[in-house]
C-alpha cells in the first residue's frame, strides 16, 4: 500500500477556523467508535513510562564574569535568496553589456553562477571580452541566441574568478629603498587555455550564422532617432 505523503483532513474548512463537521460527527467519521469496539469499550493505551531519575544538572562556576552587562546582538538567521534570472536570459543569449570597460560590447551568455552573477564570454577572439562575470542589472538581453549545447561549463564557478592571494613578504629595511618589485598581473597559462578551448566551440557555432561574427565584434550605441523605450532587443 503506497503511503500517502500528505494527510488530507476529513473535515473541510467552511472558512478559516470553522470546520464543516461537529465534534460528534468527526468522532463517527474517524471511526473512533470502531477502534473502541475493537478494544472492548476503551481506547488502546500505552503503559505509562516510569519517570526517569533526573539527575540535578551540575553547574560549573563560570570562568569569567564581565564587568559590565554587554548586550548580545540578536541572531541573524537571514538567508539571502538566489538571484532570479530574467526569463529573457537563457544559455546562449547575446547580451549587451552596459557598464564597465566593455560597455556596448555584445557578448554570449554561458550560465548563471551560484553567486547570482552571469558567466559571459566575448568570445575573446571576436571582441576581446574574456571569460568574465557580469551582473544581471548591467546587461540588456537581446533575443538573438547562439547554440551553446556542445560546451561544458562545469569547471567555471565563482572560485575560478577569485583574486590570487599573494604571500606577504616581510620587508627588511634595505628593501624599502629598493625599487618596488613590479607587480605583474600575468594571466596564468591554464586560464588562457580554458578561454581558447571554450571559444573554439563557440566560434564554430557563431560562424554558422551569417553576419553574427561581425555583429558580436561591433559595439552597440544609440544612434540619432533611437528611442530606447521603443527599441525591440
Amino acid at each position, binding site marked *: 500500500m503506497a503511503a500517502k505523503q500528505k494527510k488530507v483532513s476529513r473535515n473541510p474548512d467552511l472558512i478559516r477556523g470553522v470546520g464543516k463537521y461537529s465534534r460528534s460527527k468527526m468522532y463517527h467519521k474517524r471511526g473512533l467508535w470502531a477502534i473502541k469496539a475493537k478494544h472492548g469499550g476503551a481506547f488502546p493505551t500505552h503503559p505509562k513510562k516510569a519517570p526517569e531519575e533526573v539527575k540535578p544538572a551540575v553547574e560549573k562556576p563560570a570562568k569569567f564574569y564581565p564587568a559590565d552587562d554587554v548586550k548580545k546582538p540578536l541572531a541573524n538567521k537571514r538567508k539571502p535568496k538566489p538571484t532570479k534570472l530574467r526569463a529573457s536570459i537563457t544559455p546562449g543569449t547575446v547580451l549587451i553589456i552596459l557598464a564597465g570597460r566593455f560597455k556596448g560590447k555584445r557578448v554570449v551568455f554561458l550560465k548563471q553562477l551560484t553567486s547570482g552573477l552571469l558567466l559571459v564570454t566575448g568570445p575573446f577572439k571576436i571582441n576581446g571580452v574574456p571569460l568574465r562575470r557580469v551582473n544581471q542589472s548591467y546587461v540588456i538581453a537581446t533575443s538573438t541566441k547562439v547554440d551553446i549545447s556542445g560546451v561544458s561549463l562545469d569547471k567555471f564557478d565563482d572560485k575560478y574568478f577569485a583574486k590570487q592571494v599573494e604571500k606577504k613578504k616581510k620587508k627588511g629595511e634595505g628593501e624599502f629603498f629598493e625599487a618596488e618589485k613590479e607587480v605583474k598581473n600575468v594571466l596564468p597559462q591554464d586560464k588562457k587555455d580554458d578561454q581558447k578551448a571554450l571559444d573554439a566551440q563557440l566560434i564554430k557555432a557563431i560562424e554558422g550564422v551569417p553576419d553574427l561574427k561581425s555583429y558580436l565584434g561591433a559595439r552597440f550605441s544609440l544612434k540619432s532617432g533611437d528611442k530606447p523605450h521603443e527599441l*525591440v532587443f
Partner: protein
Amino acid sequence: MVFKRYVEIGRVALINYGKEYGKLVVIVDVIDQNRALVDAPDMVRSQMNFKRLTLTDIKIDIKRIPKKKALVAALEAADVKTKWENSSWGRKLIVQKRRASLNDFDRFKLMLAKIKKAGVVRQELAKLKRQSAA
C-alpha cells in the same frame, strides 16, 4: 475644396486613437453628429467617435447594420484586405510595423545592407561621371 471621402455606411476607416489603434473597421451606422457604429470581423460591434477614425478610400456594399456573417461576406467580396495592403498607405503602415519589430541583430544586418547598397550606387555614379566627363 471638394471632399472625396464621405462618412457613409460601408466606408472603411482606420482607428487612429485608443486601444484599437491601427485597426481597420467598417462604418455600419451613424449614431449622431459625432459618433458612428463600427464593426470589424474580429471585434464586437461598438460605437466610436469620428475623431478617432480616419476615413480611407475603400467602401464596401452593405445594408445598414448587417449581421456579422453578412459583413464578413461583403468584406471578402470587396477584397478589402488586399486592396488595403496594396495601397500606398497600407504598404507604409506595414513597413512601419516591420521596422518597429526589428531585433538588434536585424538592425545590424540592415545597417550592413544599407552600406553595401550605398557602395554599389556610388560606384555606378562614379562610372557615369567618368563617362560624361570623358
